[in-house]
C-alpha cells in the first residue's frame, strides 16, 4: 500500500514537472528593474554544412512580468518555399516553474505575413495566439528551421530591446570553413560583458545578466548604441542563386550578373519612343530628366514579393507592359530606358527610412538594404533618383534616403558612396507676413512662406491635397491660433528649383484675449515652435539631432486704433552649439510692431551630458516664441 502511494506520488511529480530554473523567484532583482520582460535564455545554434543548406535551432525562455510585456513575446516563425519549419513548440510555466500548458505544431496558426505595402507576398508564418492566464509567466519557445538561403545570417545582440533584461544569451554558428564567415562587431563598449570563442569552423558569442534599458528621447537608433555582431558568408546562396561577397566590388559584380543583367531588355517600340523623346539632346542630365518624367507618368508603385522576386527586379519589358512595379522594378526600368539612349546609371541599394539614417555597413559586403534608388553619375557628382514616386522632383531624394551610405551596383563591381546631406542651410523656410488686431481682439493677416530642401519635402504634398485637407493641415500647423479660418490658399510648386511657395490669408476671432479690459496676445503668431524634449532626470544614451534646418520670419503687426502698448516682450538671442535663436520685437510706429525671428538647428551627435542644455535651449525658445504683449486703450 505504502509503495503504491509512493509511486503514485512519484508519478504525479513527473507529470506535473516543475522546472525550478524557470521560476520567477530566481530572477535577480537587478534584472527586474525597468523590465517588463526578462529573457532567461536566448540560444541560437546555426549550422551551415554547405552553401545551400542552413539549419537554425532557436530556444528562447522568456519571463513576462506583467501585461505591458506581452507585446514583446513573439511566438512566430516565418516560412516560405525555401524555408521550412521542422520543429516548433512551446511550453508555458507559472511563477513557481510549474508547467501550465504545452503547445505543439498543430496549435500554431499558419498566416500570411502582410507587410502592409505589398498587394501580394508569399511569406507566411506559423504563430501561436497565446492568451496568458496569469502573470508573471515563463514561455519556453523552441523552433528549428532549415533553409537553402544562406545569404542572411541573423545578427546577434546581447540586448533584446528596451525594457527587456537578458539573463543569458548566446549564439553559435558552425559552418563549412570554405564558405568563409565574415564577422563585424559594432558598439562593443562596456554595456555588457561579451564572451567570444572561435575555431576554424565555428564562432560563438555569449553574454549574461544584461539589465533592461529605458528608451530616451532623441536617442540614436538601436543599431547605433547597442552592441551587435553581424555575420555573413563570403560564399552564399540567395533563392538558389549562388553568390560571393569578399568585398563590395566583387559583391556588386555578382549582384549585377545574377540579378540585373538579364532584366534589361526594352521592347523595340518603346526604344523607338524613347529615342524620339530624347531627340538630339546630348546632355545626360537633360536626357535623364526627360526619361524620369516619362517613367513618372507611365508607372505607379505596386509591390509584389514572390520568391526571388523579393530580390530580383521584375523584367524591364514587363514593367513596360504593365505600367507598374516595386522599387526594384521601377528603378531597373528607368536604368534600362537610360541605357537604350546611352546614358549610364547605377542600381543603388539603400536602407530607406525617415526616422533614422541607417548606413550600409561600409566594410562588410553582404546582402543588405531594404530599398532601391537610381544613381546618375554626372560631372558635377551624383544625382539621385527616387523612381517609386510619381511626384518627387528630378534629382531630389528627400529625407527617405538622404545622408547615408548606399551601394552602387555597376556592371564591373559595386562601391559604397554617401547620399546627399541636406544641411541647415539647404533646409530653409522663410516666412513673411503681416496681421492686424481689431479692438475686439480679432486677427486678420497674410503670410507667404517659401520652403527649400527637406522643408520642401515636408510641404510640397499640400498642392495635391483637397481643399478640406489643406485647411485641416493649416489648422494643425497654426494650432496655436484658436478659431482660425483660412480665407485664401495659393500654392506654387517649383520642382525645377525645388522650392515650394505658400500664400495664405488668415483670420481668427478672439486671437487677442481680453484680460480685464486689456488685450493680450503672442506677437509671434505664425512661426511658433512648441517642441520641448522630455526631461530625463538621468540619461544613459547620447542624443542626436538627425537633420538641421533654418526658419526665418518677419511679420508686421498693426495694433487697433486708439491702443497703446502697456508691456512688450524684450526678445532674446541664444547662441549654442546646437544652433541659434533670435527673436526681436521692434516698434516701428506707435501702432506697428515688427516681429523678426530666426532659428537655426544644426545636425549633430551629442554626449548625454549635453541633453539638459539642449532641452533648456528648446524650452527657452518655445517660451519666447509664445511671449505676449499687453495693449490697452490710450
Amino acid at each position: 500500500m505504502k509503495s503504491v502511494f509512493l509511486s503514485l506520488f512519484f508519478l504525479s511529480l513527473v507529470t506535473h514537472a516543475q522546472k525550478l530554473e524557470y521560476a520567477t523567484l530566481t530572477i535577480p532583482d537587478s534584472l527586474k528593474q525597468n523590465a517588463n520582460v526578462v529573457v532567461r535564455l536566448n540560444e541560437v545554434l546555426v549550422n551551415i554544412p554547405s552553401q545551400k543548406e542552413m539549419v537554425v535551432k532557436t530556444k528562447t525562455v522568456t519571463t513576462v512580468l506583467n501585461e505591458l510585456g506581452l507585446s514583446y513575446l513573439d511566438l512566430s516563425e516565418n516560412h516560405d518555399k525555401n524555408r521550412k519549419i521542422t520543429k516548433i513548440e512551446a511550453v508555458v510555466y507559472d511563477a513557481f516553474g510549474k508547467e501550465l500548458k504545452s503547445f505543439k505544431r498543430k496549435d500554431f496558426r499558419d498566416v500570411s505575413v502582410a507587410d502592409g505595402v505589398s498587394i501580394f507576398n508569399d511569406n507566411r508564418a506559423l504563430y501561436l495566439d497565446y492568451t496568458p492566464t496569469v502573470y508573471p509567466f515563463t514561455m519556453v519557445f523552441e523552433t528549428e528551421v532549415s533553409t537553402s538561403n544562406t545569404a542572411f545570417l541573423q545578427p546577434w545582440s546581447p540586448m533584446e530591446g528596451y525594457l527587456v533584461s537578458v539573463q543569458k544569451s548566446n549564439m553559435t554558428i558552425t559552418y563549412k570553413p570554405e564558405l568563409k564567415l565574415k564577422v563585424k562587431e559594432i558598439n562593443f563598449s562596456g554595456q555588457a560583458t561579451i564572451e567570444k570563442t572561435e575555431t576554424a569552423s565555428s564562432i560563438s558569442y555569449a553574454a549574461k545578466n544584461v539589465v533592461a534599458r529605458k528608451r530616451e528621447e532623441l536617442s540614436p537608433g538601436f543599431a547605433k548604441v547597442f552592441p551587435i555582431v553581424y555575420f555573413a558568408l563570403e560564399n552564399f546562396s540567395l533563392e538558389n542563386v549562388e553568390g560571393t561577397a569578399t568585398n563590395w566590388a566583387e559583391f556588386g559584380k555578382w549582384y549585377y550578373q545574377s540579378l540585373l543583367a538579364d532584366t534589361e531588355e526594352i521592347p523595340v517600340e518603346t526604344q523607338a519612343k524613347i529615342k524620339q523623346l530624347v531627340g538630339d539632346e546630348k546632355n545626360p542630365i537633360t536626357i535623364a530628366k526627360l526619361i524620369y518624367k516619362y517613367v513618372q507618368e507611365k508607372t505607379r508603385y505596386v509591390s509584389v514579393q514572390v520568391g526571388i522576386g523579393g530580390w530580383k527586379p521584375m523584367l524591364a519589358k514587363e514593367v513596360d507592359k504593365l505600367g507598374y512595379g516595386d522599387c526594384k522594378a521601377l528603378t531597373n526600368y528607368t536604368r534600362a530606358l537610360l541605357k537604350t539612349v546611352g546614358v549610364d546609371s547605377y542600381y543603388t541599394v539603400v536602407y530607406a527610412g525617415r526616422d533614422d539614417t541607417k548606413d550600409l555597413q561600409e566594410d562588410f559586403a553582404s546582402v543588405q538594404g531594404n530599398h532601391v534608388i537610381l544613381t546618375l553619375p554626372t560631372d558635377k557628382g551624383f544625382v539621385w533618383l527616387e523612381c517609386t514616386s510619381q511626384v518627387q522632383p528630378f534629382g531630389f531624394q528627400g529625407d527617405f534616403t538622404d545622408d547615408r551610405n548606399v551601394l552602387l551596383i555597376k556592371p564591373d563591381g559595386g562601391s559604397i558612396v554617401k547620399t546627399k546631406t541636406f544641411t541647415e542651410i539647404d533646409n530653409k523656410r522663410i516666412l513673411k507676413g503681416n496681421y492686424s488686431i481689431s479692438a475686439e481682439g480679432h486677427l486678420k493677416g497674410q503670410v507667404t512662406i517659401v520652403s527649400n530642401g527637406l522643408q520642401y519635402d515636408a510641404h510640397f504634398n499640400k498642392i495635391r491635397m483637397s481643399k478640406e485637407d489643406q485647411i485641416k493641415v493649416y489648422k494643425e500647423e497654426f494650432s496655436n491660433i484658436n478659431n482660425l479660418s483660412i480665407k485664401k490658399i495659393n500654392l506654387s510648386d517649383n520642382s525645377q528649383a525645388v522650392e515650394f511657395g505658400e500664400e495664405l490669408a488668415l483670420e481668427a476671432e478672439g486671437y487677442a484675449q481680453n484680460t480685464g479690459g486689456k488685450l493680450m496676445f503672442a506677437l509671434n503668431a505664425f512661426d511658433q515652435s512648441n517642441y520641448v524634449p522630455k526631461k530625463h532626470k538621468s540619461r544613459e544614451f547620447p542624443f542626436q539631432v538627425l537633420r538641421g534646418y533654418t526658419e526665418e520670419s518677419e511679420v508686421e503687426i498693426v495694433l487697433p486704433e486708439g491702443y497703446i502698448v502697456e508691456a512688450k516682450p524684450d526678445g532674446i538671442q541664444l547662441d549654442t552649439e546646437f544652433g541659434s535663436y533670435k527673436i526681436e520685437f521692434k516698434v516701428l510706429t506707435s501702432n506697428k510692431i515688427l516681429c523678426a525671428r530666426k532659428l537655426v538647428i544644426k545636425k549633430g551627435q551629442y554626449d548625454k551630458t549635453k541633453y539638459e542644455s539642449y532641452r533648456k535651449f528648446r524650452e527657452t525658445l518655445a517660451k519666447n516664441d509664445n511671449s505676449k504683449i499687453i495693449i490697452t486703450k490710450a
Partner: protein
Amino acid sequence: MKLTFLICLGILFGSHAVAQKQALGKVKKEELMEKVHPKDSSAAAAIIFKKAKTTYTYYEQSGFVSSTDFEIKIKIYKKEGFSWANFEIPYYVGYQTLNDEYVDIISAYTYNLEGDNITKDKVVSQSKFKQTVNEYWAKQTIAFPNVKVGSIIELKYKLKSENISVLPDFQYQYDIPVNFAEYTTEIPEFYLYKGMLRGYVKPEITYDVEPTSQSFSSKLDKAYANKILTYNQIVTNYKAKDIPALKEEEYVNHMQNYYAKIVHELELIRYPEEEPKPISTTWEKVVESIYKEERFGKELKETNYHFDDLRLLIKKDFTTKDKITAVFNFVKSRMNWDEKYGYYTHKGVIKAYQDKVGNVAEINFILLSMLKLAGVEAYPVLISTRENGLAFFPNKSIFNYVIVAAVDGQENILLDATDKSADLNILPIRDLNTSGRMIQDNGASSEIDLMPKSNSKEVLNMMAQIDTQGKVSGKIRHQYFDYNAYLYRANYNGMAKQSLMERLEKKYNGIEIQEYDVQNNYDFTKPIIENYAFEATNSVEIIGNKMYVSPLLFFALEQNPFKSEVREYPVDFGFPNQDKFNVSLTIPEGYTIETIPQPKAIAMPDGLANFKYNISNTENVIQLTYAVDINKAIINADYYDALKNFFKELVNKQTEKIVLKKG
C-alpha cells in the same frame, strides 16, 4: 400569391437583354479627357458607376445557390487615386459545412487616351493575385496595368456563395464620389429577405414580381436530363446617384458605420407544400434562431463544471448584490479573454473554464451560468460593439457580442467579464453602443439601454502658490470615478510609478512631479486617486511688473478640439462625463490682485453640455470651482455648431488670466 413549382422537361427560355444606359466597355473620349470630377474637384478618383445583381441558380444537389455579378467603372483623376487600381475583393473561406466563396474575374481593363486614340489594356493573369488572409478570409487582388492620371478602369466579377442566409453587402458610398449605383436582386419567391439600409444616403427602391424559369440537369437513373423549374421571382431594384465622398473626421466611432450600403438577411423560407419557415422576421425569431444554435442555447445550460468553485464563493448571508459582485469578480479574475468576438462559443464553456481562456460568449456564459446557479436572475444580452454599427432592425448578423444583465430588485446590472478593468455597470467602452437585446428564458426579448445613466466624474483638487519668480508649486489630488476610473485602470494599471510620473510630465509641458502615488488600482469600490506634488515653471507669464496666470494653470485647454467648419456625422464622446476642478491659488508676496475673470455659466441647447465657472478671492488667495458636464455620449451633427461654440467659450474661459500687480 400562389406558389407554382412546375418542372417541365425540355423547354428552354431565352433571356432578353435589357438596355441599360450605364454599361461596361463604352468608354468615351470625353470621359478620359475629364480633368476633375464635375461635382467634387478634390476627388482623387470617382466611381462612375457600381452595379451589382444577385441571382439564384438551382442545382438538384445543393438547391439554390446565389451569385452576385459586380460591374464597376472607376475614373482616376489624381495620382493619389492610384490605390483604386489595386482592387481588392475579400471573400469568405471559413464555412464549416459549405464550400468556400468564390470570385471569378470576368473582365478587367484599363482605358487610356493616347494622342487621339483610346487604348485598352487587359488585366492578364499575372496581375491577379489570390491570397489567404486567415482561416476565415481570402482576397483576390487585381493590379490594373498602365494606370495613369486620367485612366478609366473597368471590372466585372462574380461572387458565388452557397450561404444564402446573407447576401454580400452592397456598399455605395466611399471616400471618393460615386456617380451612380444600382443594385438588383432577383430572389426566388421561396426566400424572403430583409433588406437593410445603412448610412445617410437613401436609394430609390422599386419592387416587381415576375415569373421566371431555369433549366437544371437532373439525374434520371443513370442518365442526365434537362429539366425546367418555373417560379416567380421578386425583383428589387435600388438606385442612387451623385453620392458624395465621405471623409473621416475627429471623434468618430468607426467609418464603416457611416458609409451607405445595403445589407440583406434571410427572414423566411417558404417552399411549396411546406410550412413557411421563419428565419428572423421579428426579434423573437432572431432570438429563437440564435437560441436554437447549440453553441448558444446548449452552452448556456451547462452548469456542473463550476459548482465546486461557486459553493466556496457564496456565503449564506449574501444579498443579491453581494452574489453578483462575488461571482463577477471571480469570473473576471479567473477568465482571460482571447480577444475573439461573437455570441457563439468556440471551444465550449467547459473547456474554456478549465483553460481559463475563452472568447466573449464563453466568458460571459460562465458568468451567467454561475449567477443563475447562485440564485440570481440573469439574462444574456446580445449587443453590437461600437465598431460593428447599430442594430436598427430585427436581424441576426448585426450582433457580434454578448454580455449579461443581472437583476437586483428593480435594477438591471450590466456585466462583461472579458475585461479586467470592468465592473458592475461599467462595461468596456467597445460595448457602449446605444442598446442591446436582453433574452429571457422563454425566448422573449426586450431592448435594454447600454448607455451609462449618469455622468462619470473626474474631480481635481489643487492647492498651489506662486512665488515671486512666477514658479508655481502645489499639491494635487485627482479622483477618477466610474468610466474615468475604468479608462485609467485599463490604460495605466501595472505601469511603474516612474512611467506614470513621466506620462504627466509629458502631458503637461513644463511641470515636474514628485511624491507621486496612486490608490485603489484594484479596489473597484473606490475611485482611482492620484496624489502628487508639482512644480510648474511655464504657467505664469511675467510681462513688465505684472503676472498673468490662468487659475487652471497647465490644465487649461488651450485649443478647441473642434476645428472643422462642418460635420457630417455625430460627435462621439464615448460616455457622458463631468470634469470638476477645485483650485486654491495663493499669490506671491508683494503682489496684489489687479483683475480676476468674471464668473460664468454656459449651457448648450437641450441640456447637452454646460460649464460653470465660479471664482472668488480673499486678499491673497483665489478660489475657483469649475465644472464641465457633457451630458450625452453621442452628440448629433445638427448640434455641431453649438458644440464648437461651446468649446470656444470653454477654451476662452479656461485660458482667461488673473492679473497680479507688484506692490
